[in-house]
């Protein structure tokens, strides 16, 4: 019964404790003000209750010092709250370099996960404890939201682009995974569990998975099948730029702008190639809209990421 009346979810990630500390600070501050206001209201209401029908209370002048005090003190407190929350938020927004990447696809009404070495699962997510993990999120239909209360992590999954969330689990066990953004009839059924295991157990679990093909291998096959390889070779050519070493590089565009080639850029290049034309090339690449599933795209991106090193015949940046 006591177990059922808890007020904090498990603290199962590196940031959970920090979020809770901030939460406690806010609770402390609120308790103070609630006590102050309730206390004063009740005290005044009792002390100054009307004692005779024609009672006329003495005038009380507005006091400028009071007005300033109760403007400035709350201002300082909310700014502290802002700064504290902002600093944590920035940490939450940037996955540590080298985080292990897991690809997730949300759709009405399930979660699909692909591990880097190929294991796939639905509505379950196995992760090793103590290793930062970045989840790359894509949606096949409407907006969903990836929410693991025990990790204090939430990120919307928005169709048409990639978003990401990261966490580092600190505790083995099973935790709720919820879809937090209303997504239609079975929204409350779009739930699952995150299973946090020792790294060795995670490895064992991975090797037990039947579909053990790494993401990038599937991506390479698609790259051949869909004819990407006819235009994108190992060196830049008239038919298209080489994709080696593309990921994470700054790409010069014909429009004069430049963008960093991240997942969203590659996604856009494939689905809507004319949106951003690479400098020095003709807009001849056909769109692959509707021909690749979100999972296929994930594999393709994993493959392009795996093409490391500068393209042949191009000087390293």
């Amino acid at each position, binding site marked *: 019964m006591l177990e059922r009346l808890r007020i904090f979810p498990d603290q199962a990630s590196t940031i959970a404790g920090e979020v809770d500390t901030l939460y406690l600070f806010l609770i402390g501050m609120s308790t103070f003000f609630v006590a102050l206001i309730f206390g004063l209201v009740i005290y005044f209401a009792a002390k100054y209750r*009307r004692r005779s029908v024609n009672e006329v209370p003495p005038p009380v002048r507005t006091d400028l010092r009071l007005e300033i005090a109760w403007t400035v003190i709350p201002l300082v407190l909310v700014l502290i709250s802002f700064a504290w*929350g902002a600093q944590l*938020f920035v940490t939450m927004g940037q996955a540590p370099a080298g985080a292990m990447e897991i690809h997730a696809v949300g759709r009405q009404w399930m979660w699909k996960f692909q591990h880097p070495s190929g294991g796939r699962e639905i509505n379950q997510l196995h992760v090793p404890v103590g290793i930062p993990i970045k989840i790359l999120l894509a949606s096949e239909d409407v907006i969903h939201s990836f929410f693991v209360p025990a990790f204090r992590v939430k990120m919307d999954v928005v169709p048409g682009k990639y978003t990401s969330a990261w966490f580092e689990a600190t505790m083995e066990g099973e935790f709720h995974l919820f879809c937090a953004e209303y997504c239609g009839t079975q929204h409350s059924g779009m739930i699952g569990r995150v299973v946090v295991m020792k790294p060795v157990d995670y490895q064992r679990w991975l090797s037990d998975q039947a579909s053990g093909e790494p993401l990038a291998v599937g991506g390479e096959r698609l790259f051949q099948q869909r004819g990407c390889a006819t235009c994108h070779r190992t060196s830049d050519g008239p038919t298209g730029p080489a994709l080696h070493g593309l990921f994470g590089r700054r790409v010069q565009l014909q429009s004069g702008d430049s963008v960093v080639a991240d997942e969203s850029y590659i996604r856009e290049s494939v689905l809507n190639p004319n949106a951003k034309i690479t400098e020095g090339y003709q807009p001849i690449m056909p769109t692959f809209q509707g021909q690749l599933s979100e999972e296929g795209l994930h594999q393709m991106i994993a493959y392009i990421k795996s093409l490391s090193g500068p393209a042949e015949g191009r000087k390293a940046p």
Partner: protein
Amino acid sequence: MSPVVEPIIAPENLPPRVNYLNAGYGIRSWLLTKDHKRIALLYLASITFFFFIGGAAAVLFRLELLTPQSDLLQAETYNKLFTIHGLIMVFFFLIPSIPAVLGNFLVPMMIGARDLAFPRINLLSWYIFIIGGMFTLTAIILGGVDTGWTFYTPYSTTYANTYVIITAAGVFITGFSSILTGLNFIVTIHKMRAPGMTWMRLPLFIWAQYATSLINLLGTPVLAISIFLIAIERAFRLGIFDPALGGDPVLFQHLFWFYSHPAVYIMILPAMGVISEVITCFSRKRIFGYSFIAVSSLAIAVLGFFVWGHHMFVSSQSIYAGLIFSFLSMFVAIPSAVKVFNWTATLYKGSIIYQTPLLYALGFIGLFTIGGLTGIFVATLAIDVHVHDTYFIIAHFHYIMVGGALMGYLGGLHFWWPKITGRLYPEGWARLSALIIFVGFNLTFFPQFILGYLGMPRRYAAYPDEFQVLNVMSSAGASILGIGYLIPMIYFIWSMRYGPLAGPNPWNAKGLEWTTPSPPTTENFEHKPHITEEAYAYEVKEEKVVG
């Protein structure tokens, strides 16, 4: 118990033989009326009707939430019910509540005018409101809508197969009624103040209505546009929000919250105006910090337009946008805090009597304080990441919108009921129901803060077992709350016929509306009033003695 005397009705205090209520008989005299007071009553009847529809939806889904599984209702029905609840309560009850009922009745009376600047447009606003309401009701009767009151895309434009377009039309149309009422109030307050009624002598209720009208005028068109675009995309498959058609789903959220955040202030500011009137009257005090309260209303109205992105911290909006919106949102806390402190200080050394309207006002201060403080939680980025779209949010905004706006509306209704009807309601029952509402409210919504922090997402028809205890508490509270709302309904209707005569000023309140007979005549004032004193000059007697 308290030393209030039953007003002794001197003959000159009897209701005027011809007053606004009996100036004309028959349905036509009501449906074609241009009297702001009668239009206020038309609104009162209509929004009460909508309140019970929205409330019935809540009763049903609170019953469903008694158990973790979705057993009483199918998920689809559950989704339609929370959608109806949100839509009706926001657009057809809370937004019109204080402005269209109390504002309509009081704005001209408080500034010493005969009517609003555009009486015909005022009647038109009500018809527009009703037509909008009809569309929404039609959608409900045909089978409902399940997008949530937020209409998030691309669910609403592509995936929902319920009556989205009809509902959208209803909201779109109703918006024009708010725009017109806002316009009417602004012009009236600028142009029709009686001689001597300077800006700094205006009752704070008027300042609050003025600030609200500004938001209505500037914000509602944006809502209309975003709702219109939803209908266009849904009907003609034009790519605006759906990425599959080349649109941007997050764009909708920007448009929607650009209005719907300020809409929170459309609901709460008028209630704040009511509180200022009630507290001064029942503590016989000048308001503490008049100009600070007046200016803070405007500050809230203006600031409210720059914080919409705090609904979108995890929407994929950029981190920098998140930082800026969080920073700006923090500033909204300041004018709100200023108001709470000033109201509290007004009580200091007052002559306080616990009449029902004051009970509501004190309840408002308490609940609004909690609502406002939890607003700081959700404006704090790292906390919002965790509590966004959970029951914490539900609890937070119900503390503002029910604990605040609705308590203000009920307090105001009790305060001005004798003016509106000429009769008093039974004080004992009224105090009792105010107490029931306060207790029921807290029992319903306080557990939801805990539920939310534990991680229960909103809009869930089924939930994990461990959330059940808190959900049962919440549902129990809701049934108490429901009873609390039914009691006033009964005694208000009873009092219209059997309540004791109120006389022009049963509370010994200051303010021009109390100088007229109850119920007032169609003309409001026999002679155009001249104003020579500040608002809330409750201590005037003493000053005369001194001077």
